[in-house]
């Protein structure tokens, strides 16, 4: 009886979390262009409750878009640590996911995948990914949040 009530509360909390993913865009390289189009009026990311925040302290979702180089890696860690729990990370583009065209044999300046620095919840591949792919990534992340067990 009591557990059931708790479960209902849990559901509401998760629902709120997944429906208001305010994001901070850690923008390098080219994928921010596509993110800009996703925010734009044809795709309209705000339908999912996503608002861009200028400060990571107010954001729930860290969108890493583009290649993370050795020089900018410490900043990424700093931004991730500043964010408050519960927080999620989304890596957009091949460069952020694997290093893409700049992976180690060709270039050692780019970190081969953001997962080597910070835990990543969802990857969106593509170079750059289409807006539909980014939106699909958001939807998948919402599903992941509502299915997760942690509170």
């Amino acid at each position, binding site marked *: 009886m009591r557990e059931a009530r708790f479960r209902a509360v849990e559901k*509401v*909390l998760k*629902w*709120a*979390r997944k*429906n*208001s993913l305010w994001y901070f865009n850690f923008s390098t390289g080219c994928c921010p262009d596509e993110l800009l189009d996703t925010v734009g*009026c044809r795709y*309209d990311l*705000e*339908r*999912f*409750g996503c608002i861009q925040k*200028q*400060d990571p*302290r*107010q954001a*729930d979702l860290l969108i890493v878009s583009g290649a993370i180089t050795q020089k900018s890696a410490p900043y990424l860690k700093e931004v991730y640590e*500043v964010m*408050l*729990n*519960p927080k999620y990370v989304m890596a957009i583009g091949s460069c952020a996911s694997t290093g893409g065209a700049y992976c180690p044999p060709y270039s050692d300046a780019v970190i081969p995948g953001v997962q080597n620095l910070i835990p990543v919840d969802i990857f969106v591949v593509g170079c750059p990914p289409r807006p539909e792919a980014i939106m699909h990534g958001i939807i998948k992340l919402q599903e992941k949040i509502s299915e997760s067990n942690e509170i």
Partner: protein
Amino acid sequence: MNELLDVWEKTLRISFSPPRGVLVVIVILFVYLLVLFPFAYLFAYFDRKLTADLQARVGPNRAGFRGVLQVFADLVKLFQKDPAFFSSGFEKENIWFHIYIMLLFTGVVFLPLGSLTLLINTDMSALLPFCAAFVLAFCTLLFSLSQGEVQSSFGGLRVAVHVLSGAFPALVALQAACLYAGSFRWSVISESQGVFPQSWAAFTSPFLFISFCVFIVGGLVMWSLSPEEGGFSVSSKLSGKKFFIFRLGRFYGLFLWSVIAVVLYLGAWNMPASLYDGLKNSQEYLLILFIELGVLLAKTLFLMFVVTGIVRVNPKIRVDQATDLSWKILSPLSLVSLIGTVLWSGWSYIR
């Protein structure tokens, strides 16, 4: 209930004897629970939807029917945020934040929300909300200075400068309106106006119309700087509950100003006299309360949307340009309107 309403009508002086103090608390709670919170919710939702519509977008539509629950989701999420982050500089920030919150909750005492909820109806009650706005701005300034970052200090200074420069012409305009009404008392101001637009203060004389425009634009200068969205954000370090309260404070400033504008210029909460008398004779005080509240809030909502619409559509001007506008154009205009109103009412008096 009747007795309570009678007391409401008589609360010119606030004494600290227990029942009256309790009454004040009840009224404040009533205003917050019944007016301010739902109104803030409605405004936030419609603001997002209308802004999206202006930008040829859809706006939030996933949370609830047409995204009605979006603001609720944001709220619940903000309250889930882990507050353990704050460490250094926390105490100083906290003091100013507590003052901010206290002001937010006590400022309601002088909100004019209908003839039955006038808690403070003195000979200078129309000026009190301005004091509240000043103190709110002052708290924002000190709060942002205590954050110790270049960016937030500039943000706080900017809020203070905007409020100061916008308040001067608005205050002079308010004097003109009160001169027309004959008093700074809320009840007198509302009684001097009628139900329909032609008898509203803003449309009775050209000078009052000027002062109405000055009041509107002064309010735009005062509240157009939204610290969350652009420019130098005061709120950049805030998160979770504090962010919510800060936003509520900004909303409260705009709301306070719009309510005053409606009461001064746009016919306040007046309903037809026959209806009012009929209800009063049959002792339907609650009905009166709600009708007045509805009339006032509808006008207020409309005014707020006009103001935010103008802010959304146009680029923001720099802070020095905004203060220039305020000191060099609005202030002389407001003085003209004041002098004009003096002459206008003096002429009709002589005649």
